[in-house]
């Protein structure tokens, strides 16, 4: 039975095949533009970031203080209308030292690696983190559990975006 054909097709091309022009391709570059409606909760979140504050919502039933804020508690499945400011400090839950750009190209000689992290924000419920990046820190000194604080862009340069926080730095 084991001599039965199990695999067929999947003809590998080499770089040479492509370079030599023996392979025909049709090229197209996608051009889609979107303008996503932020909605009630994220609109307020971004507006508050512009003011240099982080805001969360609290569920009146389970009492979770949730980040990013949301108009409803997904667990209790009820609306949330209680807004709570939380601190701009937190704890590193996990981090990475990334040498690759978003398109998989490598960072150049002398360019600093990206330092993404999940940061549990003080004042939000346990474990409520956001993804952001770290700065003003030697990559090898970053530790899980480290306390960090937001470094904000100058007020005039804030646009109402998650990037109004430049990065989080060790406290």
């Amino acid at each position, binding site marked *: 039975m084991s001599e039965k054909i*199990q695999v067929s097709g*999947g003809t590998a091309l080499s770089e040479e095949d492509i370079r030599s022009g023996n392979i025909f391709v049709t090229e197209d570059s996608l051009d889609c533009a979107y303008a996503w409606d932020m909605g009630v909760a994220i609109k307020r979140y971004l507006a508050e970031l512009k003011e240099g504050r982080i805001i969360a919502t609290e569920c009146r039933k389970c009492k979770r203080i949730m980040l990013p804020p949301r108009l409803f508690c997904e667990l209790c499945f009820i609306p949330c209308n209680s807004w709570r400011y939380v601190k701009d400090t937190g704890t590193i839950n996990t981090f990475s030292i990334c040498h690759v750009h978003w398109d*998989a190209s490598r960072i150049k000689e002398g360019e600093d690696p990206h330092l993404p992290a999940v940061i549990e924000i003080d004042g939000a419920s346990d474990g409520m983190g956001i993804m952001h990046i770290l700065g003003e820190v030697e990559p090898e000194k970053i530790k899980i559990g480290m306390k960090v604080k937001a470094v904000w862009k100058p007020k005039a340069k804030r646009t109402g975006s998650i990037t109004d926080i430049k990065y989080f730095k060790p406290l």
Partner: protein
Amino acid sequence: MRKVAIVGAGLTKFVRRALETPKELSFEATKTALDSCGLSLDDIDCVAHGSAPDAFDGIHQKGEYLADGCGGWNKPTMRVYVGGATGVHAVVHGWHHVASGMFDICLVVCEEKMSNAMPHAQGFFLTIFDAITERALHPNLLWIFALEMNRYMERYGYTKEDMALAAVNNKRNGLLHPSSQFKDEITVEDVLNSETMAYPVSRLDVSPVSDGAAAVVLAAEPVARRLTDKPVWIEGVGWTLDTAYWATRDLYYPRYLDKAARMAYEMAGIREPDKQINIAEPYDPFDYKALHHMEGLQLSPRGKTVELLRDGHFARDGNLPMCPSGGLLGVGNPIAAAGVMKICELFWQLRGEAGERQVPGDPRLGVAQAWGDLMQVSSVVVTGI
């Protein structure tokens, strides 16, 4: 509950860049699967197919585009997707078709052609992040895996060397797989010395970008018995999706998989998975994920997985072989097709048709799993003979 079996399976080779179009890859796998059980397209009642993000091919409504390549022309054809978990989930989706009593024979086909995306498929993963609160940070796919891997290692004090052991195990197994895109064995040192992409992830911790397709044929009990004397039964299925607010849960443990696995085991009547299951095909796009998933599948105690791996427990001739196919690390990772490849492996292993890769000891029960999205979804299929 109506019994459903896998009666045929087929794969293409997994390659970095294939000559064939997505439709042609689908055709090759589909035809091979049909031939393996002596069926023609006329015998097929419906097609359940799967493919993860459309952006790779730049084709909107990609399921429609693929339909005729999958044998879906003038048939009930429905595409399912749950990100990286699509492959195994397509088999769950196919099971729904047959177990519901609505169809007797269902083709399950998954295809992925990642090389169409230029300059690199990874660029398209930027668009999986929250459009408003995360994309502005220019994240890449490696970030989330690196964040999860780091958290997992920290929690149990695992080292990068520990994680590399899984890559070595799977890649060694994969050398025997006829679809594999690799030729060379690697060592732990090779993994540790490979380029650091996003600490703690190095290049050899990661499965490759691939083109490929895979297909299986499912049949209801009476039909299955007529088609083959060795039907491989789908004993249990489970799937779970966790919150999209991924940064708000602790990444060290895959709780979504815990739930999905328990759902599948309950259906299969399995009480002690670590003792009852003979073969495991956990999803392994990264080496740590194989181990992380063995814990979520309840096949290894939390935090003890590296120890068991070192003791040979998960080797091909161990108590519970892990990824005897070679997995994504050892065969290749055409996303949705890789999940079905794991189901194909269970099919061949349980029938004793895995050739050089055959797991000794007459295995009776296997589990395959896939995972994806923002580290939040798992699909689990338990098969038995």
